[in-house]
């Protein structure tokens, strides 16, 4: 079995951060079909990450990009992944994501999310950004929404639930947000690469 959307073989998707959001987005997109993923993370897998991130106990200590590459190849051996073990900053972001049709913002810290989204939107001319704000805690599944902020910016989340005392990050709610992201990425790519594809019944505009 191959990916769901074969027509997306020419598409390239960036994933900035391979934590709770990024590891789930990477797995979902590998099953769905974009031809190439550009994944970026400087961190290593820690035991604490296993409560919500798509790694395994025997991968603790590995670089997340290496562990994720192994996992994605177990799903789809021919998946094409460009991996960067670097800390993203305004100087390297435009070059690393230059070829991406869409970039998923999968950071943890609010100021880092701001830096990444601002840089992508101001320095790259055509790349669409799918970012996330507000996914901590549990329950309130339907409070997590996908909204189009502008032609090149789609925002996922409930907008308010930050991590804090008594508000942990959980596999279920982070997973909901990550799959909103992956779903928005696919919608953007199908509009771009396969404009004749039937529109979904309810649009997110």
């Amino acid at each position: 079995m191959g990916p769901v959307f074969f027509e997306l073989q020419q598409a390239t998707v960036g994933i900035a951060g391979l934590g709770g959001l990024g590891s789930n987005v990477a797995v979902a997109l590998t099953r769905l079909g974009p031809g190439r993923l550009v994944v970026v993370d400087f961190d290593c897998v820690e035991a604490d990450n296993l409560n919500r991130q798509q790694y395994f106990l025997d991968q603790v200590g590995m670089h997340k990009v290496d562990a994720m590459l192994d996992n994605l190849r177990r799903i789809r051996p021919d998946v094409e992944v460009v991996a960067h073990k670097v800390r993203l900053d305004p100087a390297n972001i435009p070059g690393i994501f230059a070829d991406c049709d869409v970039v998923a913002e999968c950071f943890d810290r609010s100021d880092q999310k701001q830096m990444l989204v601002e840089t992508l939107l101001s320095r790259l001319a055509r790349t669409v950004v799918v970012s996330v704000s507000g996914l901590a805690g549990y329950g309130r599944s339907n409070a997590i929404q996908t909204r189009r902020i502008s032609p090149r910016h789609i925002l996922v989340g409930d907008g308010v639930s930050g991590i804090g005392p008594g508000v942990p990050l959980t596999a279920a709610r982070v997973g909901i947000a990550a799959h909103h992201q992956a779903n928005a990425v696919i919608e953007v790519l199908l509009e771009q690469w396969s404009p004749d594809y039937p529109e979904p019944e309810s649009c997110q505009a």
Partner: protein
Amino acid sequence: MPSLRINGTDHAFPGDALPATVAELLNALEIDHATVVAEVDGRIVERGRFGQTPIREGQSIELVRFVGGG
């Protein structure tokens, strides 16, 4: 009363108190500059330029606030 359209909603400022810059607008709304992406009439304003970017009557402003977690 001077007004701005902020995130799709008209926002009136009493008297002549329209904020002069994006930075002043964020201060008036008590929004942390470090966690917001600002767009004025469809153009991204980089955080480093919040203080030098003037605001004018009737502009449409999008403020996307990020909270932590991922």
